[in-house]
């Protein structure tokens, strides 16, 4: 273990470990152990459930909690109304679930629970999870697109105003940009979350190592690194929100393509 060598392994935080002795739990021959990743998905789900259920009082004059929940649903509603139009209303449940799932996962992964001996796990820093969400979104776009427009959906690859002499090239480029969408969705979130967590861990290892090596290096390297960590923590909270928003926004833009073509 890296920790035993006196330094911090910045990748250790992403390690998946089966919990509660479920190592060999399997379904159709696939291992579906309940891991620390699954545990934090469960915690995220419970947190979202508690949050939304707290806003279900349905009062005419909302309290603070109800106001908070209504502002989240209103936010997603506005996002879809602005990007998809009236047809976007029916995607509010999906986009809301997506946004809240990613947002809560990102934020819960940033909690300083190590102070009480618990290691928070950010499952959005695993592309095996972000990939599931991205493929879901992409599949919905494909299903909606073909269900609404049939084969006419392929006209998505020929944007308005394409010159005739470029018709051999533009659809090809459009097709590639279309096919890249699920990867860009999944990788953007995964990379953003992982990079921030690695950066925090690396800076914390600077603080620990420099403090251990004496007052001089502790003050020259450790204190600036610690200040930078505080600033980057704030940045990470911003990134947690922005990445969830970007995922929801891009999904709604892709849904707009599927609903309205061009």
């Amino acid at each position: 273990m890296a920790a035993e060598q006196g330094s911090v392994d910045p990748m250790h935080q992403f390690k998946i470990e089966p919990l509660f002795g479920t190592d060999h739990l399997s379904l159709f021959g696939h291992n579906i152990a309940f891991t620390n990743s699954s545990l934090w998905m469960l915690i995220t789900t419970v947190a979202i459930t508690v949050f939304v259920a707290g806003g279900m009082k349905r009062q005419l004059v909302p309290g603070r909690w109800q106001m908070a929940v209504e502002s989240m649903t209103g936010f997603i509603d506005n996002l879809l109304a602005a990007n998809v139009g009236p047809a976007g209303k029916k995607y509010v449940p999906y986009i809301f679930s997506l946004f809240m799932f990613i947002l809560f996962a990102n934020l819960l992964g940033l909690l300083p629970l190590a102070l009480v001996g618990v290691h928070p796990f950010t499952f959005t820093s695993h592309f095996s999870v972000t990939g599931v969400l991205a493929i879901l979104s992409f599949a919905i776009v494909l299903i909606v697109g073909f269900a609404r427009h049939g084969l006419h959906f392929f006209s998505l690859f020929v944007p308005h105003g394409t010159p005739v002499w470029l018709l051999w090239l533009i659809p090809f480029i459009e097709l590639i940009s279309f096919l890249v969408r699920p990867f860009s969705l999944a990788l953007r979130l995964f990379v953003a979350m992982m990079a921030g967590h690695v950066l925090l861990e690396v800076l914390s290892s600077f603080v620990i190592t420099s403090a251990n090596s004496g007052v001089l290096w502790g003050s020259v390297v450790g204190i600036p690194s610690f200040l930078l960590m505080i600033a980057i923590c704030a940045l990470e909270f911003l990134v947690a929100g922005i990445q969830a928003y970007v995922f929801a926004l891009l999904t709604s833009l892709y849904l707009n393509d599927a609903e309205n073509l061009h």
Partner: protein
Amino acid sequence: MPQISQLSETYASQIFWALIFFGFVFFVIGRGMVPKVMATVASRDKQIADDLAAAEAARRAADEADAKWKGEAADQRANAQAVIAAAKADAAKAAEARLAAAGATIDARLAEADARIATARQGALAEIETVASEAAGDIVARLAGISVDAGAARAAVKEVLHG
């Protein structure tokens, strides 16, 4: 990088649990709770809009009632002025008529009084003549010792009195 090095052993678990929990979030929260929250918001917005419309309608009705009331008040004031003017004219006419009647009565009584005075004077004059002629007869009888005929005395007195 555990994301890659552990991929082959964990991908099934990751995908399975991600689908389970995201599915729960989608079906229970997204499909179950969010529409209710949004219905609450929509009903509140509708109620606010309805209340605003009702308030606007009530304001318009109040304006109309005010304008109507002002018109009625102006009409009634004009009516009242007309009634007052008519009453004044009537009163003036009645006063005039009563004055005229009273004047006539007074004239009649004056004339009657004049007539009574004239009668009284006539009577008084006639009595004075009688008394004067009797007194003249007595005076003559006493002074001259002549008995004068009453008719002659009266004629003499009349002559003196009326010149």
